[in-house]
């Protein structure tokens, strides 16, 4: 899948290197964003049929298809909203509490 890659952002040294107004080329991801997740979606791949309804409903676009055609979740950006688990027609996604000691 064509997902933006994480790139470093170095603060410009000169004001001339700042963009004119707050605009920048699209898809420039500078940091992971998943720290507020309490529950993480865990896909039971034996139950999952690969319908990819979760891909359609995920509000953050973190569901991807692996080369093997399976569902994969990008935990760097998943916020743990649980929409995928709620919508899965085969109840193949469980919301599992994060271990905060990790």
């Amino acid at each position, binding site marked *: 899948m064509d997902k933006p890659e994480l790139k470093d952002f170095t*603060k410009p040294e000169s*004001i001339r290197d*700042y*963009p*004119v*107004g*707050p*605009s*920048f*080329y*699209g*898809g*420039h991801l500078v940091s992971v964003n998943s720290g507020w997740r309490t529950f993480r979606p865990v896909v039971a791949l034996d139950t999952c049929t690969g319908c990819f309804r979760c891909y359609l409903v995920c509000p953050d676009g973190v569901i991807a298809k692996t080369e093997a055609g399976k569902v994969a979740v990008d935990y760097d950006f998943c916020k743990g909203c649980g929409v995928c688990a709620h919508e899965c027609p085969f109840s193949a996604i469980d919301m599992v509490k994060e271990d905060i000691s990790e």
Partner: protein
Amino acid sequence: MIDTRKNESVFVSGDEAVALGVRLSRPQVISAYPITPQTIVVERLSEMVEDGSLDAKYIHVESEHSAMSAAMGASSVGARAFTATSSQGLLYMAEGLHYASGGRMPIVMMNANRSLALPWSIFGDHRDSMSMLDSGWIQVYVEDAQEALDMTIQAYRIAEDPSVLTPFMINLDGFILTHTYELVEVPRQKEVDSYLPPFSTPNKMSLETPKSMGFSTSPADNMEFKYQQHKAMMDSMEVIKKADKEFSEMFGRSYHGLVDCYQCDDAEYILVTAGSVTGTARVAVDTMRIKGIKAGVLKLRFMRPFPEQEIRNILSGAVSYGVLDKDISFGYEGTMFTNVNSALSGSKNFPRGMNFVGGLGGRDISVQDIEEMFIALQKCPDNAYGDYIKSRVSFVNMGVNINE
């Protein structure tokens, strides 16, 4: 219909002159909500779009807030946008003003200067636009319908300059300019096209180079964007002067950059004005000169960027100066006075200054009122700051006795 292929003089109101200037500037998007005394601009432009003489998308919006938002949307894809408003409408779109300047969108807007409620009033003063002085917009105050038309064309040229990219507000005194008919020369379309090329900017959304626009920043980057806005506004001063010079070479009319002077060279008493009252002040200067009093008028055209250097050069030769504000910042003084006074604070010769507050809510300012200002300036106390605010700020032409 006006034939813009040849030079033509037409008898139009200030509002109509702006509409003609907008059509000559070929905006692609117009979004505006009608409000007295701006309405005629919006009416004429919608008629021009309807009859095909202006090839633009006219967006009917439900509020001024939406008018500014739609103009920003247009500007963010690289379209030339126009809107117009007045008074309560200007304040209703206030958050949009900061958004547009922060987003560096060179939108041009006409503002019909009108009083702010309460008391409700449709008549003119400068309290609406002066309260938006910090919104990051360039502000010009025009004196007549011809200047209104000419500045509409120049506004796009200045706002869209790559070193400026800052929105531009053209202020016309409500009714006095918006509804008064004058003979106005309409430039030829062909010449305007060569003076004002189509808007072009890399700073826009497009499918070829996708951009995130209008994002948030952490404290680590926010000030840099604000610095850029300040620098662009400062840099616009030279662009304004250049735009005026080239305009005068092409169309034969100059407005002399950021300020204009009348009889200031040897003047001992100078009154600073903005907008239509400048014409009245010129007449008062003539009558004072006949009486042997060396009076002059400094017409402050731009409030932002502020012409500090020009003001300092012109006023520091005077014995005393007055600022005629159609505005009052309650509890202090008129905003123009605050700015002019601040400009002078660094000069070696700091003349005494008085602040005349007049014309609020459409109150007339007559030639005689201005003559009295010059007489007051002659009697200006050695230290006008002796009694602080009370001694230097006076309300002109009050209808009742206020000596409580």
